[in-house]
């Protein structure tokens, strides 16, 4: 019976496809607050015939939703609270979605369900900044173990650098992208792209894969580090590209290709920059540690094996040992 078919439980996939095709039908949740920004739909070519049938229902539904929707002003606390309206399992689900990008699945439609949150991007960026600084410092420690002439210091200023870099990347690049897509929308006069928050969300969650990668970069095997880096970059950039593809494919071929390649390039630059700035390459294993003064006869002059870092207690003690070995050597050098 047709009625029974309509009443039958629809699969999860169908529901998400329906939502992808008619994004105006925002999903409601336990809380009354809906997405505060009126987002516009992405025009999907194949969905036109489907959309025509539902149009009458759609207008009723949207009218009802707009009556219910009370958007608090941006000066109230409730406005910002609507961006943190996520549960633990939702955040975990979004993180999982960013780790495993699939070609058909649009992150914004399928995972975010047009309800972006700010919790994920903010805390993922904070975690990434601290993990970068900490693991970078750990590589310096490992390098010092192998070559004691390298001076270990906590390098706390790198935390500031990491924080500023990551936050600027995760907020300014989505701003530029959103602005660019809006401008192209203006040119094409079609229904537009994602809202600013959705773009920030996509970028924020796509940075999550770098957190375990950065920790794995502690392993001092160079080809393994490059492998992990390339893998993380591929996953992250794939997530971004699959999300941007439905918006960008209606544009000219050239603009689409340029946009996507710029996005991937910026992501790659971030990964490379982090690798080179924060991580200290391990010195080769055959560097001999500077010998102690007592173990050698005083007539042998000790050549320095590596540049001294003068202003440290370690450097001073080694220099003092150096002087102690030089002084007894002087009488033997006189003819």
């Amino acid at each position: 019976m047709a009625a029974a078919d309509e009443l039958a439980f629809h699969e999860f996939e169908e529901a998400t496809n329906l939502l992808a095709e008619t994004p105006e039908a925002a999903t409601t949740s336990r809380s009354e607050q809906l997405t505060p920004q009126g987002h516009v739909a992405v025009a999907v070519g194949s969905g036109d015939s489907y959309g025509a049938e539902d149009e009458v229902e759609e207008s009723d539904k949207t009218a009802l939703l707009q009556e219910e929707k009370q958007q608090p002003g941006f000066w109230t606390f409730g406005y910002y609270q609507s961006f943190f309206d996520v549960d633990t399992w939702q955040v975990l689900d979004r993180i999982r979605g960013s780790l495993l990008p699939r070609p058909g699945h649009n992150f914004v439609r399928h995972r975010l369900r047009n309800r972006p949150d700010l919790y994920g991007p903010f805390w993922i960026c904070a975690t990434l900044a601290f993990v970068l600084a900490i693991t970078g410092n750990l590589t310096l420690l490992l390098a010092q173990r192998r070559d004691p002439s390298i001076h270990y210091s906590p390098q706390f200023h790198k935390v500031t650098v990491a924080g500023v870099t990551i936050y600027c990347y995760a907020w300014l690049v989505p701003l530029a992208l959103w602005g660019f897509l809006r401008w192209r929308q203006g040119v094409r006069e079609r229904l537009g792209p994602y809202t600013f928050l959705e773009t920030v969300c996509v970028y924020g969650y796509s940075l999550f894969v770098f957190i375990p990668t950065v920790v794995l970069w502690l392993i001092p095997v160079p080809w393994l580090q490059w492998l992990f880096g390339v893998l993380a970059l591929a996953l992250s950039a794939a997530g971004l590209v699959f999300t941007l593809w439905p918006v960008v494919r209606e544009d000219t071929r050239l603009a689409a290709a340029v946009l996507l390649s710029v996005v991937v390039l910026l992501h790659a630059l971030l990964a490379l920059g982090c690798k080179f700035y924060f991580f200290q390459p391990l010195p080769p294993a055959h560097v001999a540690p500077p010998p102690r003064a007592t173990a050698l006869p005083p007539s042998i002059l000790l050549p320095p094996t590596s540049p001294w870092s003068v202003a440290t207690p370690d450097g001073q003690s080694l220099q003092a040992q150096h002087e102690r070995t030089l002084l007894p050597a002087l009488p033997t050098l006189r003819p």
Partner: protein
Amino acid sequence: MRSRIREFDSSTLNESVQNTIMRDLKAVGKKFMHVLYPRKSNTLLRDWDLWGPLILCVTLALMLQRGSVDSEKDGGPQFAEVFVIVWFGAVTITLNSKLLGGNISFFQSLCVLGYCILPLTVAMLVCRLVLLAEPGPINFMVRLFVVIVMFAWSIIASTAFLADSQPPNRKALAVYPVFLFYFVISWMILTFTP
């Protein structure tokens, strides 16, 4: 109750300075005891004060200063950096838990987070004493063990006070930033080299 409060108010104006200071110090000390032996009690939340966090933060920042006179660019955290991390970290975590829908007031949360730095301050003290001995792997293992134990103690203490104020399906979201905060402070303590 009201008359008692009125009597309390008028009598504190005439008391000696020593009484005032001792009363505040006793309140701070009582809260320290609550942090060191965390139970599910409301004392930290009910009469919050920010003296304890200030004392702890200043002590921690002073102890994290290196003795060397030369200004190395890549040294440990400066006094201002520690201060900023502790206070802005606490403010950010408080804002986060309020935005997630927690029903704890702003200053109560700051108070709890600040007081729960006490175990880490004790760890810093112990690390400084241990560093007076000769350096070596045993030295490092002792410091690592002390910092890990005190880090766990801080997390348990703050979670005991803060967890109940969050909606049940968002507890992990509210506790994770606290974990990150104390982890960063523990890292600063562990990497301290005089």
